[in-house]
């Protein structure tokens, strides 16, 4: 199970990357994709949508479960990963790469700092 150090995490198993342009990219962790099993569908949010931290904005379906994906920070959705429409399996094969889900322009970029660091998330995930 991988927990890249350059990312931040949430207790709802999203990972978050604050990019140089101030935009935040969001996906689900390796731990989360493993727990879900084969992902068969990703319901993406709408570009331009204003979202609040903790709000369910996307959903990931495997064969027998469906999980909401929560916005880790408040802001505006600026891009969604449309590759997932045809290749939902990217969430399983490349959770931290091609399997990213959406990008948010955060209202307050400093909010990212409040999220879990890799070590803390790892400890949390593995105690589940």
């Amino acid at each position: 199970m991988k927990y890249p150090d350059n990312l931040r995490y949430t207790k709802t198993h999203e990972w978050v990357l604050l990019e140089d342009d101030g935009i935040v990219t969001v996906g689900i962790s390796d731990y989360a994709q493993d727990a879900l099993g084969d992902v068969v569908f990703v319901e993406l949010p709408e570009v331009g949508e204003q979202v609040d931290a903790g709000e369910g904005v996307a959903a990931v379906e495997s064969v027998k479960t469906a999980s909401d994906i929560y916005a880790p920070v408040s802001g505006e959705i600026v891009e969604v990963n449309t590759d997932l429409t045809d290749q939902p399996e990217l969430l399983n094969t490349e959770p931290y790469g091609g399997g990213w889900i959406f990008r948010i322009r955060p209202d307050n970029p400093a909010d990212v700092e409040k999220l879990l660091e890799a070590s803390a998330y790892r400890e949390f995930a593995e105690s589940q």
Partner: protein
Amino acid sequence: MDYTPHTPQDVQAMLERVGAKSLLELFKDVPQPILDPQLKLDPPLSEAEFMRHLRELAAKNQSAAASFLGGGIRPHYVPAVVPALAARAEFLTAYTPYQPEASQGLLQAIFEYQTMISELTGLPVSNASMYDGSSALAEGVLLALRESGKMRVAISQGVHPEYRRVVRTYAEAVGAEVLTLPLVEGRTALELPEGVGAVVGQNPNFLGTVENLAPLAEAAHAAGALFVAVVDPISLAVLKAPGSYGADVAVGEGQPLGNAMAYGGPHFGFMAVRSELVRQLPGRLVSETTDVEGKRGYILTLQAREQYIRRAKAKSNITTNAQLTALMGAVYLAALGPQGLREVAVRSVANAHVLAERLSAIPGVRLLTPAPFFNEFVLELPKPAEEVRRALLAYGIHAATPVPAEYGPKGNLTQAHELARPEGNLTHLALFACTEQHTEADLEGLEAALREVLR
């Protein structure tokens, strides 16, 4: 008569094994004051006694098998092969095919059913069935509202009044507003209100008129709404498929397809949609797939839409639907084939046109349904329809379904929330339906009886 196999010795041995002294002790968690109440029920009957009692009750009914009653349910002939196959105990006594390895029979039958409904409606995706036509429509409307993100429904007055009431019940529960598009000379008016997310038309409409719904579908799309078509499955043997005139969702009542009228149920509803809407679809869906040996098989799919996974966020709460009656529909369609279904439709249409001509020639009777009409039509009678329906019974004829006054020339359009009861108070409007079962003699007989009744 109960159906328990336990001998007293069995009960004793089993109680010992579970560590209880009596059957009543098994209910020790139930608060004492409410345990084992007196029940006021009739004394139990043996099977023979029950069937005798039931025959006595059945004798108080009159068969409507040769009737001219319509309005969603019609006395089409049910070929013997349909109930014979559906009565196979393996189908009858199974539950939802959650375990596909042991349920290939039903799963394949559903896959075939989905294909047939797709062919009839001209839409690529059909679900496995809904409860009935009216609830299928209500779910179709909710689907359209979810997809469009709007909370207003515009429904043609040409849609069956009971269906409109069901839509109203469902829509109001989620806070959506239901508005009625009036019929003008038997056709749905095209002026859509602002902010609609779902537009509904019916073809043939409740008066029996074949409406060209393409302009309504176009208007719906221009307004950013989805178009939902309510269709009669028999008519689709000859009439344009809703998918070909812009319907996003097609729904209807399956009873005419090999289901006995059974005093209104159980039958099945069908629902088909455009491919892009598949994840909004309520209910079961079966997909073809392969097993570990590469063998073709069938399985329930996209279950994450459903309540037992998605819970509060499910697309619908529907669980048990109408699998066995939908299976009867599929057997019927396969038994008739495209030619047979066409012949049923054509003969029903031909009978209706002969009958309409005969009846509207009676003094005081006027044909209210504008042409072209399919196999049902509405007459304005010189007497109240309920009275006529009752008087015709003396001639052994069931006909003249009372139609709500809102459809009459002087009738005010009632908004969905004000709809009169379907039996229609003192309306002089009556609906007549023909099927392939009616003979020339039946048509003559009804004409003669109606002349007498209206004399």
